[in-house]
């Protein structure tokens, strides 16, 4: 844990000068439902990657890999949008802690 900042250490007007610093703020613990990726049903359409509001889908060489659970808030948009294969979803939502 970083030492909390005192009032003399702040930028004027609470302006954030470091672009992309949301990466430091891990939001995965907010999740109530956890998406699970079923690779066998995945057609690599990348809809999930496009729709994910938290950039929590890891893509390498143009192909999706597993979720980045440090940032996934469990919103379920990916599971909703996933077309799957032959009527079978490639992303399913499961309750956390079960």
């Amino acid at each position: 844990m970083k030492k909390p900042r005192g009032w003399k250490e702040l930028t004027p007007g609470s302006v954030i000068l470091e672009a992309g610093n949301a990466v430091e703020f891990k939001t995965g613990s907010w999740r109530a439902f956890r998406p699970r990726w079923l690779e066998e049903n995945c057609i690599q359409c990348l809809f999930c990657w496009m729709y994910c509001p938290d950039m929590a889908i890891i893509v390498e060489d143009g192909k999706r890999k597993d979720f980045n659970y440090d940032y996934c808030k469990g919103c379920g948009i990916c599971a909703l949008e996933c077309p799957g294969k032959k009527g079978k979803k490639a992303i399913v939502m499961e309750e956390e802690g079960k």
Partner: protein
Amino acid sequence: MAKIVAVTGNEAVAEALRQINPDVCAAYPITPQTDMMQRFSSFVSDGKVDTEIILVESEHSAMSACIGASAAGGRVVTATSSQGLALMWEMLFIASGNRLPIVMPVVNRALSAPLNIHGDHSDSMGARDSGWIQLYSENAQEAYDNTIQAFRIAEHMDIRLPAMVCMDGFIISHSIERVEYLEDADVKNFVSEYKQMNPLLDIDNPKSYGPLILPDLYMEYKRAQHEVMTKVKGVVLNVASEFEKLSKRKYGLFESYKLDDAEIAIVILNSAAGTAKDVIDQFRAKGIKAGLLKPRLFRPFPYEEVADAIKDVSALCVMDRADSFGAYGPLFIEICGATLHLEKRPLMINKIYGLGGRDFMPEHAEQVLNELSVIAKTGKIRIVKEYIGVRE
């Protein structure tokens, strides 16, 4: 060479804004300010300034547009009055909290209800805790001079806070007075090129304005905001001294009028101070040691300096052109705060006057000074807060 003209307060401030040539102006009409921004938009239409003018649908939008333009990195101005300032309310705090040096002439006008378009200080006094610097102006000359100085104060790299320049609606905004204009080149040189701080349009260095700050850090930001306000006094005095070299007109944190040896004194803002000074001269001619203090910088309030100026007065009346119903007037409360730690302090009373443009007449000042003479003699206060110039 300065140019001497006969103009209204609105015209004088619009002229100052023409000379300053800000980057962006977003404004919405409201009496008695309308005429100022109308004149300024004529300068825009006639190509006398390079300002981008944004016509908006309300004062809330005007201030919002100013906030955006200021964060983007521009020198920004707007102006308002009364209900307009009230409608800006939530955005005022965003401008100051984001440390955006927007300059806003406020043509003081009463607040509804009942509906009234004339001058009193209810509007700007209501915004006293919004984190804006507030300068008050007695006449058109002071409004012109304060507007020019406000840009330097607000935009100072140690300050970066928005500033209001207040003047009385109609009494000053619409009355024609003698005003000395500075040369265009002198004003341009005085306000100098706008210096940006963290501009959003610097796309090579992306940044973010207005983050969510939760209980773990919010109080630190507010403490920092107070700290920057404590530096304003010094900047106001430095800017005033530079301005004096240019204009030969002297400004301070407040004006002391025959106050040095005064036994009785009045504290009063804006145009009514002019009337009160005439009456003080009459009392002086009768051998009565009367004086006056006219605050110029109301936010931040210069407590120590004011206390030092009035500490030897026996009886003092603080006159408020705004009311706090069921409480003392806002200026009176500040003067009480200023004198709190003095071992010996004046006996003080509070008069509410001039609401909704009710005339402040010489006889009102006389009545107050006579009452102060009695208080100084007897050491007894009849009543702390009272309304003057009001029918029973």
